[in-house]
C-alpha cells in the first residue's frame, strides 16, 4: 500500500475536489451516479474519482449500495431486470453510458471478479483462462503463452502447469478464484473490479489473493468491494465508505482507519453500528 494525497472526500459531495498533482490520475471519474432496482434507490448521487493503478476499497454494511456501485462501473447493473442507472462514469474521459459505447467491449476493459469462484465447469483450466477470447471468437496469436502469462500473474502457474487439461473445478476454492482472476487478466483489462473476492475463501487463500492484489496494483486500476474491513485496511490505498446508498467518505485508507472525518465512518469502522 502506498500513500498519496486524497482523491476526494466529504459526505455526499457531487463535485469532488480536483486530483492533486502529479498523481494519482483518475482512471475512472464518477459523477452524480444514481442507481435503482425498480423503485428502490440503491445508489444516490455518488461522485468520486478512482485513481489509476491504485487499489480503492469500497466498504459499508449490507445493502449500502457498494456492490451496485461497482456493477455500475462496467454496466453490469443494467443487466438486472428492472435496474437502471443515471449519471456518468467516465473511463479515461469517455462516459461508459454513452450511446456509442459497446457494453461488451467495456467489460473487457473493466473486468470483474465475483464473490464465488466461478470457473466454467465444462472447461479445462487452459480454456478457462482463454474463455474471454473463446466466447467472443477473438483470435489469440499465441494462446499457450497467454495462458502461462496469465497464470503466472496470479501465481497459479507452478500449481497447475502439469494439469492444464483438467477441469477448473478440480482446483481448490482459492485456486479457482485465482483462475478467475487469470481469466480476467487474459483479456488484458485496464480496470479490475472485485466483488468480495475472498468471502468464500479460507485465510491462507485470502492472503494469497490479497498478495496478488498488491502485485497487480502496479499495472491495473483495482476497485475492491469487501465486507472485511481489515482486508480493506491491508490491501487498499483509498477507501470509500458507503451507507444507505450515499458515499459518506473517501480518503486515504490510513486516514479512514486511524482518524476518519465523518462520524458515520467512525461508527462503522469501529463496530458501533447497531
Amino acid at each position, binding site marked *: 500500500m502506498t500513500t498519496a494525497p486524497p482523491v476526494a472526500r466529504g459526505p455526499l459531495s457531487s463535485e469532488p475536489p480536483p486530483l492533486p498533482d502529479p498523481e494519482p490520475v483518475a482512471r475512472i471519474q464518477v459523477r452524480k451516479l444514481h442507481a435503482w432496482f425498480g423503485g428502490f434507490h440503491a445508489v444516490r448521487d455518488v461522485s468520486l474519482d478512482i485513481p489509476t493503478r491504485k487499489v480503492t476499497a469500497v466498504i459499508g454494511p449490507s445493502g449500502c449500495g457498494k456492490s451496485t456501485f461497482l456493477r455500475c462501473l462496467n454496466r453490469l447493473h443494467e443487466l438486472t431486470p428492472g435496474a437502471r442507472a443515471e449519471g456518468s462514469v467516465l473511463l479515461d474521459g469517455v462516459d461508459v453510458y454513452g450511446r456509442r459505447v459497446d457494453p461488451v467491449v467495456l467489460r473487457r476493459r473493466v473486468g470483474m471478479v465475483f464473490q464465488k469462484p466461478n470457473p466454467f465447469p465444462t472447461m479445462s483450466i487452459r480454456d478457462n483462462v482463454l474463455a474471454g477470447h473463446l466466447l467472443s471468437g477473438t483470435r489469440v496469436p499465441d494462446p499457450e503463452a497467454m495462458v502461462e502469462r496469465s497464470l503466472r500473474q496470479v501465481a497459479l502457474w507452478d500449481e497447475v502447469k502439469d494439469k492444464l487439461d483438467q477441469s477448473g473445478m478440480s482446483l481448490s476454492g482459492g485456486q479457482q478464484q485465482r483462475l478467475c482472476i487469470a481469466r480476467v487478466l487474459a483479456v488484458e483489462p485496464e480496470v479490475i473490479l472485485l466483488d468480495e473476492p475472498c468471502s468464500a475463501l479460507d485465510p491462507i487463500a485470502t492472503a494469497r489473493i490479497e498478495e496478488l492484489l498488491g502485485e497487480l496494483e502496479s499495472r491495473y486500476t483495482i476497485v475492491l468491494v469487501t465486507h472485511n*474491513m*481489515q482486508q480493506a*485496511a491491508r490491501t487498499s490505498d483509498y477507501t470509500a465508505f458507503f451507507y444507505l446508498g450515499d458515499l459518506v467518505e473517501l480518503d486515504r485508507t490510513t486516514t479512514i*482507519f486511524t482518524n476518519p472525518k465523518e462520524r458515520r465512518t*467512525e461508527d462503522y469502522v469501529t463496530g458501533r453500528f447497531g
Partner: protein
Amino acid sequence: MSGRSDAAHTSKHYEQELRELREKLILMGSLGEEMIGEGMKALATRDAARARATIDVDRRIDRLECEADQLAMQILATRQPVASDLRFLTASLKIVTDLERIGDLSVNICERVVELCDEPPLPVRIDLGGLAEEAVSALHEALDALVARDVAHATELLRRDDVIDDHYSAIFAEVLRVMGNDPTTIFRATRVQSIAKYLERIADHAMNISEVVVFLVQGRDIRHRRRPDGDADR
C-alpha cells in the same frame, strides 16, 4: 472527526474490555496521586512508617501496569481496533508507562522522606508542599482530561508546565543557597532537592498524558513541538 462516538460497540464484550482498560489507567493515576499526597504528609509529620507504607502502594501500580498492557495486547490481537479505538489503545500503552513512572517517582519521594525523618528541617522554609500540590493537580487534571476527552483542558494544562518548571528552579536555587551558607545542611538539602526534582518529573509525566489526550481525541501528535511561548517542549 474529533473524539470517540457516543454510540456503544455492537459487541458488548469489546465495550467492556475498553472500559476495563480505561478504569485500570484511572486507578493507576489515582494511586499515584495518593502516593504523592501520603509521601508529602509523611514528610510534614516526619513519619517514616507512613512513608514506608506508601512505598508498598507502588506494587499495586506495577501490577496494574502489567494487567493494562496485557489487556491492551489482548484487545489489539482479538479486536483489531481502528480509528478512535486504535488511538485509545496506543494512547493507553503510552499513558500506562507514564503512570508507572509516576509510581516509581513517588517511591523515590518516600525513600528520601525516610532519610529525612531523623534530620532537622532546613533553616529556611522550602516550598515543597506547593510544588507537590501543583504536581498532584497536574496529574489529576490530566486524568480528568483523559476521562472527559477534553482537549481544551489538556492544552490548558500544558501551558502550566513552565510555571511548574520555574517553581522547581526557584526551589533548586534556594536549596543551593542554603548549602552554600551552611555545608552541614548538604545531606538534608540534597534530599529536599531530589524530592523537588521528582515532583517536577511527575508533572512532566502528567504533561505527557495531556499530549496523549490531544492525540486520542483529534489524532494530532503534538509531542516535541514548541509551546506557544517559544520554549522547546521535552
